[in-house]
């Protein structure tokens, strides 16, 4: 990560602009030069004026300045379809998810997560901050899940649920926190928070990295609800997905394919097997015709799995969605 001043200088130089061209009656050559050299810091207002002077947006600036986008997108819940944000704030949660997903055997996984749980327990005891309490709740629920204790998981995640309910306007952090917690929260909480998030996330459709969050949230909430065999709730989520796909301003091919697949998925698990298979296969064939892999890595394994699905085996879907 380079300093603020360095980044500014690189951007200015890359546009062939001299210090003199950037300076005006508000801000002198000397002040800009000191900022670039790290000799002094600029006020936020001045800094925003300077960005305007070189025709750069704040997102661009921080994109170059932080290593935010250099973080390798981590594969959350075994999906490859999601651009996971390299947000520093979410790092502790990534760490837990990785522990849950990566170790060789189930026992090794449980052991690794339990060790993390003890560490964060101690940290929370010493510094009972809001953040630490949420990380602890997340670790506790992860341990529960590894022991297939879903009821306990939905109880242990409550601090996160309460936090999300207390925040009025959600930002990126809250949206991702919900997406990460979907497998743990109880169905009623999930449905309530989902509705709330869909309203909140509306605001983000024009933010570069966040505009697809609503689709991601629908897909994840749907798969968790189907996994828990709450088909009516899953159907409501799917309706939201359809509305999104068909809204004129925001339609996107990739998610139209996902929506078609989800319809097939729901049909298969609720008994309309042949009709469902047809829809899933249509969805997968789009990528074959276009000769790109697209979301095939995400959808193909799910499809293979659904075909073997036996509704009496409750663990079956959950295993795939959480511990793959």
């Amino acid at each position, binding site marked *: 990560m380079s300093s603020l001043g360095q980044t500014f200088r690189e951007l200015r130089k*890359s546009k062939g602009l001299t210090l003199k061209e950037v300076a005006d009656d508000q801000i002198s050559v000397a002040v800009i030069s000191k900022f670039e050299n790290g000799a002094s810091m600029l006020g*936020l*207002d001045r800094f925003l004026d300077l960005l305007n002077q070189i*025709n*750069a947006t704040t997102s661009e600036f921080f994109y170059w300045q932080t290593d935010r986008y250099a973080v390798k997108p981590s594969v959350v819940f075994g999906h490859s379809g999601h651009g996971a944000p390299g947000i520093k704030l979410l790092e502790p949660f990534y760490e837990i998810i990785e522990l849950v997903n990566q170790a060789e055997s189930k026992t090794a996984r449980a052991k690794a997560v339990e060790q993390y749980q003890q560490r964060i327990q101690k940290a929370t005891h010493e510094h009972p901050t*809001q953040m630490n309490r949420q990380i602890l709740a997340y670790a506790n629920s992860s341990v529960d899940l590894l022991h297939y204790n879903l009821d306990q998981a939905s109880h242990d995640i409550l601090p996160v649920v309460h936090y999300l309910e207390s925040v009025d306007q959600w930002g990126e952090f809250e949206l991702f926190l919900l997406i990460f917690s979907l497998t743990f929260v109880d169905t009623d909480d999930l449905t309530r928070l989902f509705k709330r998030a869909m309203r909140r996330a509306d605001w983000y459709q024009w933010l570069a990295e966040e505009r697809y969050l609503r689709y991601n949230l629908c897909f994840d909430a749907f798969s968790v609800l189907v996994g828990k065999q709450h088909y009516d709730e899953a159907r409501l989520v799917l309706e939201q997905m359809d509305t999104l796909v068909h809204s*004129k301003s925001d339609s996107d091919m990739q998610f*139209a394919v996902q929506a078609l697949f989800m319809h097939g998925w729901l049909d298969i698990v609720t008994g309309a097997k042949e009709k469902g298979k047809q829809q899933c296969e249509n969805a997968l064939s789009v990528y074959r015709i276009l000769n*790109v892999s697209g979301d095939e890595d995400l959808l193909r394994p799910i499809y293979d799995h659904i075909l073997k699905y036996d509704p009496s085996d409750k663990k079956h879907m959950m295993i795939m969605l959480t511990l793959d």
Partner: protein
Amino acid sequence: MQSLGQTFHQLRKNKNLTLKEVADDEISVAVISKFENDQTMLGVDRFLHLLRQINVTTEDFFYRYRESDPQALQAGKKFSRNEMPLPEVFDVLEPFAELLAIVNTDKKDIEKCSDLQKYIVRTKSDLKSAPTLNNRMRLALAETAINEFQEKSFKSNHTLMLPITEYLSNVSVWSAFELILFITTSIFMDPDDAIQMFDRCMKQAAHYTRLSDLRYLGYSVCFTIFSAMVTHKRFGDAKRALDEFDNFLKKDAEAQFAIKSLFMHGWYLYIIGNKEDGKEKCITVLQLCHTLHLEDDRSEYQELLEQIEAGGRMPMHAEIFG
């Protein structure tokens, strides 16, 4: 419009955090409180630290800050076809907002020209008092636009556009501003200039793949150049633009661009004389849209296909994919 401090205050309150919970040894309660009340400005470094304290990203913060400014939102709408607000990257077009508004009205060409004349007179006097880059480029673009409406030759556009082409060729790494400027102006450029610039732009393509705004602009550049080269009947150059489009596709395999690519391949085959295979590809695209229940996209492609089949001079598409 909200101040920076007010925006911060609102975000902090919204997360139910007290000043005390946000303050630490780097920044005191008093300083934060003064910032929130507009009594003092914070340094950028301290501001970034504060955002981390309340779990808010810079994107979040500036999105909200910008959202509280009705003027900024209005500015975005000026360039958008369906009145939807546009992503933040389009803020960089603000210096050209008035000019683009004149060009994009539904008025007759003659009226547009007279509006442009007035604009040019004003810009010339601005340029005298403030010889800035943006004033120079505004003037160039206005003069080129008049030329275009009077249907003079592409050749004279080339000279008029020089301030813009020179600026673009001197910028070593294009960011959103240069990409958007190139997309909106390349259809006026001399095809030799446009293709030369396109090559430069593609050499830096690696920079565009990570930030999604910029990545989409990369696709837009390729599509715009493709349609411009088709119009100029420079099929070899059109093919190169198509190949670059496919290169982007190899990296992220996004379905909406994969389908666009399939259509462009059909279009290309059709115009170089292989009408049968070309049309077949275009029709596959129509069918895929139908399978996915995307009827709006289907009718847009249908319309384009009809234009291609009718022959004649195709309208050039300077298209920005949102």
